[in-house]
Structures are given as structure tokens and as C-alpha cells.
């Protein structure tokens, strides 16, 4: 581990891993003598977040960032490692306390068409957490709270009577946010909240999220592959590649001085009209098969700086200046 986390951190992941068993049925395995196969979607991820900050996790699809989101809120149980929320490990808590912690964290999902039950009225969707946690007593109070929440996200109380299909993608995402806010959470996990939206709408949603953060003092874990959105909203950024964090730094640092070759490659992929002046390195190659990732540093087959050590030894996250980077080349001063 690069650095020990203090329990004062609001949210912390400690060497969290999640492996999925994707083996064939045992009979086929027995006959073909094939071994069990595990997909290491998340393979030892650690980070810590302070209250009120926004940490973004970026990476190409399949890098495990959405799995991290689900591990943090407890939709998945970690295969190893643990997730701490306000110093408590959710998985180990008795049911009553777990419900109390659950109320304080919520999630906004990627697909605004799948994240709202098409058969429910908007008011019931928004009220579900209120009912589940017993946060409002009586119909009148419930209706009032739902109305206020809809106003808060820029909709009108009358919208509560409608069904989700009567709204556009951006409006649906606002409903999703209203639902997430209804239990007065302190921590929101946002799993690619804007990637399914039109570009013109993305900024509106991001601005809404920012405003809400200021008003309510929210902490965001922001999952995205959209670097522009990440730059817009996050305080710190972690870059993931094949289930591991390869670099994590302040947003400014990461975008201006990326150290890890993979981070550089990601940034180079953004069309840069201003031309920052940094030399662009075209980097080819595909993401390797996640079922059989390369040994050592997962990135070495695509990395121009790879040497024998990179092919054999997994680099750990270490502090280099303002950033934490997991790269032998950076450690050896080759970059």
C-alpha cells in the first residue's frame, strides 16, 4: 500500500478486490480439463476521500470503475479488502446500523432509461427512499417533500404525477438525482451520470450537481470516461486500467502534468484545440483480454517505456511530487 489511510477519512477503499467467476459449468470443465476462470474486475484498489470533496475515477470501459462504484455503496461484496464509510465497514454492521449508514449514501446511475421503474409514477420513485427509511410521516408530508425535491433539481411538483417515459434523458437524470437526494445523503456515487445524455444537456446536469454539492456539502465519487466532465467537476482524479488504479492526483496536477504513460495516452486522446504544447505520443494497441491480463504492469504491452521489470513485477502506487503513480519507469526516472 502506498500510504496508510487514517480512519478520519470519510470514505475509504482498502485494497478492495472483486473477482467474478466466469468458468464454464463443472461438467464441461471436467471433460475439457479447463481450469476455473475468474474475471478480476477490481484488483486491489485503494483510495480515500475527505468530506465534501469530489474524487473522479476515469478509465476506458471495462477497466472496473463501475464495479468500484457498486463495491463502495455495497451492491457488491468485495472478494477481499474492505470499504469504510465514516470509519465503519458496512458489510460487518448489524441490519439496523447498516440501514442508518445506507441512508447517508446514495447512487446516481448511468442509464436514465433503466434507472427509473417505467411502471411507477415519478412521485413514487422519488418517495421510495423516504418510505424505506421512514423519513416522512403521512401522505401530506410525503407529497410536500417530494415536491420540494423536484423543485430542487429544477422540475416542478406537478411532474410527480407523470411517468418516466414522459421525460427527456436529462429530465430523467434530474429525477434520479431527486431520488438520490431524498434521504438527505452526505455521499453520492455517480456512475457515469452524463454519458448517456446529449452533450448540450451534460453541462446542465454537471452544473446542477455542483450547485447541490455547494448547497448541501455533498461528497461525490464520480465515475466517468469523459475527461472533460471530470475536469469540470472533480477535485482529485484516479485513473484506472484493468482493475487497478495507475495514477491518482489533484485534478489540476493530473491534467497538466500526467506522469503515468497510460494517463498521458488518455489525455492525448482528447481533441485539444488549444494545443497545450506537450508533445503528443500516438499510442496504439487494444485493451488486453481482462480474463488473462498481462503479467507485471498490466499496461506494459502498450507502453513505450516498458522493460523487463515492467513485464514481471507489478508496480505499486507511490508518491512522486504531487501525484501518486504506479509505474516503474517513473520510479526509475525513465520518464
Amino acid at each position, binding site marked *: 500500500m502506498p500510504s496508510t489511510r487514517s480512519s478520519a477519512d470519510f470514505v475509504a477503499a482498502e485494497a478492495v478486490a472483486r473477482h467474478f467467476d466466469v468458468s464454464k*459449468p463443472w*461438467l*464441461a470443465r471436467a*471433460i*475439457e480439463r479447463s481450469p476455473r476462470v475468474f474475471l478480476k474486475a477490481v484488483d486491489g484498489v485503494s483510495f480515500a476521500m475527505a468530506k465534501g470533496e469530489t474524487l473522479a475515477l476515469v478509465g476506458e470501459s471495462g477497466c472496473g470503475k463501475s464495479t468500484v462504484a457498486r463495491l463502495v455503496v455495497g451492491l457488491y461484496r468485495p472478494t477481499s479488502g474492505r470499504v469504510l464509510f465514516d470509519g465503519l465497514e458496512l458489510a460487518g454492521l448489524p441490519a439496523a446500523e447498516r440501514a442508518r449508514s445506507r441512508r447517508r449514501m446514495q447512487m446516481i446511475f448511468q442509464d436514465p432509461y433503466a434507472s427509473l421503474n417505467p411502471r411507477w409514477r415519478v412521485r413514487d420513485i422519488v418517495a421510495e427512499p423516504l418510505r424505506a427509511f421512514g423519513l416522512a410521516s403521512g401522505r401530506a408530508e410525503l407529497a410536500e417533500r417530494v415536491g420540494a425535491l423536484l423543485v430542487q433539481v429544477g422540475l416542478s411538483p406537478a411532474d410527480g404525477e407523470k411517468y418516466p417515459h414522459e421525460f427527456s434523458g436529462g429530465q430523467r437524470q434530474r429525477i434520479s438525482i431527486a431520488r438520490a437526494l431524498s434521504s438527505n445523503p452526505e455521499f453520492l456515487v455517480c456512475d457515469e451520470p452524463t454519458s448517456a445524455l446529449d452533450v448540450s444537456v451534460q453541462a446542465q446536469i454537471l452544473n446542477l450537481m455542483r450547485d447541490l454539492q455547494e448547497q448541501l456539502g455533498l461528497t461525490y465519487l464520480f465515475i466517468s470516461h469523459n475527461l472533460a466532465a471530470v475536469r469540470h467537476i472533480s477535485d482529485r482524479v484516479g485513473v484506472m486500467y484493468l482493475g487497478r488504479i495507475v495514477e491518482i492526483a489533484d485534478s489540476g496536477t493530473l491534467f497538466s502534468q500526467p506522469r503515468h504513460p497510460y494517463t498521458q495516452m488518455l489525455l492525448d486522446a482528447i481533441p485539444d484545440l488549444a494545443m497545450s504544447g506537450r508533445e503528443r505520443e500516438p499510442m496504439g494497441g487494444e485493451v488486453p483480454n481482462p480474463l488473462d491480463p498481462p503479467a507485471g504492469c498490466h499496461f506494459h504491452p502498450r507502453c513505450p517505456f516498458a522493460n523487463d521489470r515492467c513485464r514481471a513485477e507489478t508496480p505499486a502506487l507511490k508518491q512522486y511530487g504531487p501525484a501518486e503513480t504506479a509505474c516503474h519507469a517513473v520510479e526509475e526516472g525513465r520518464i
Partner: protein
Amino acid sequence: MIAFTLRRLVQSLVVILFVALIAFSMFRFVGDPVHQMVGIETTLEEREALRERLGLNDPFHVQFARYIANAARLDFGVSYQHKKPVTEMIGARFPATFELAMVSALLALAVGVPMGVFTGLYRDSLLSKVFMAVSLAGISLPTFLIGILLIFIFSVTLGVMPSFGRGETVDLGGWTTGLLTGSGLQALVMPAVTLGLFQMTLIMRLVRSEMLEVLRTDYIKFARARGLSNRAVHFGHALKNTLVPVITITGLQLGGIIAFAIITETVFQWPGMGLLFLQSIQTVDIPIMAAYLMLIAFLFVAINLAVDLLYYVVDPRLRLDRGAAW
């Protein structure tokens, strides 16, 4: 392929064991077997002795294992009602059901396939529409109603057909057949039509939709473009490609025919296994019910297995997940 075959074999075995468990549970727990076998004047001691002799005091799994072992030797006990070995009774009635089922299946194929081809080729002709309407009725009318209608028309009103029984039969070394006498053949006509009608409509609709599907494909257009005659295109190319699903469905329906024979046999008082089974339900004659269940299960599993394996060989794209109709 090996894994697939093995898995299907294991699954079939599980099905048979599962059905055997149901059959055994019926035998063991529905009513008291001892009570069924003895008269009123039997003393308690004698009953207890019989119970011990039948092994009814043994642990469940021992009894079940013995039941399976006996079943494997085709020993299903003695009928409560008739006091005769069940296997003997079923064996005596098997030829009647088998002949009826086979003739029905052949009839369904022989009529259903041409009708399907015709309605597929000339989908807008009046005759096709008549065929389709008749087939809808064939699916909607209950089997027993069709049987009654046939009896009413041909036996009661016209008086040209026998309304019940098998007619004269010839005993060929334990296998009684009605196929060799005039009255036997005559008696077979109406039951076979009744039983085959539903399968016939099914086959007709299947062939029709397969024909429509095939006739749209590129290779048929190409065959036409080559200047092949309509006849060669329709029968040489199109029909040939519809036959795999047709044969499969017919195979699967064979089990259904044997099951629906229960109803047909009752309507026409046809002395087959189905009639025996129905009588055993009416009199709660559990050993016969259990044996019939096992026999049907074995037939069904064997047919399903054969069809699945055949499918796998013929067309590897079509892996499993068929569902029989209700």
C-alpha cells in the same frame, strides 16, 4: 459434444429418477397398500405380516431403492383392482395403443405435410383459407368432441363405421394386431383420425410457415434464376429444407399422441393402455397409475433425448431450449 451428450444423459436419468420418486410416493403414501390388498376379514397379525413381507416397514430409501430395482426388472407389483401383475396387464394392452399411435402419426404426416406445402405455395387460394380455418378448429376442438362427432355422423347417422372396440384381432405370438383383418382396419379408422387430427393441424401449420420462410431465402431465388422448374424448386429445394423441423416436431409429438390416446381410447372404448390408465384413476388403482407413469416417462425421455441429440448433430446453431406446447 461429449459434454453435451453426457449432460443430457445425466439429465434424462435425473428425470427418470424424479418420476420414479413420484411414482413410488404415490404407491407408498396414497392410501395404504396393505389395506388395498387384503380383505376385510384379514386379522391385524396377518396384515402386519404382509406389511413386513412387502418391506413396508423398511426405511424410505431402502424401499425406494427396491422399487427402482423392481421397476428395472419391469416388476410394478399387482393391481389392487384386478389382482393381476401390472406388467402383464399393460403388456397385453400395449399393442393396441402402439398401433393406434403409429397409424395416427403416419396419417398426420401423410395429410399434414401436403396440406402445409399447398397452403405455403398458394397462400391466397380459397382452398388454403379453408385449410387454415379447419386447422384452427382442429386446434380448438377438444379431442373427445371430435370423436363424438365422428361417431354421431358415421356410426349413428350413416351406420357405416363401428363405434367402439378393435374389431377382430390376430394374435402374433403375444402381439395382438388389428391390422390384418378387415374389421380391425375398419375399427382403426375413426380413432386414428380423431387422435391424429391435432398433430395434423400442427404439422400443417409448421410446414406452411417453414415453406413461407424458405421460399423467401436467397438460394431459392437463385434456383429460380437458374431456370429450374417450379416443381424442382418447390420439392427439390424448399420442401427438403423444411423437413428437419417437421420430423423433430413429429418425434416430440409422438409422446403427446400416446398421452392423448387416453382420451381417444375412452371415447372409442379402444382396449389400450390409456383406457386402462383412466380406469385405474377412476378406481385409484395406484400400481397401474405408477407403472403407466414410469412407462410414459421413459418413452418421453427417450424421445426427447433422441431428438435433442439429433438436433445437435443436424444443426449446432439450434442448441436446446425448445419448449413443448401445453
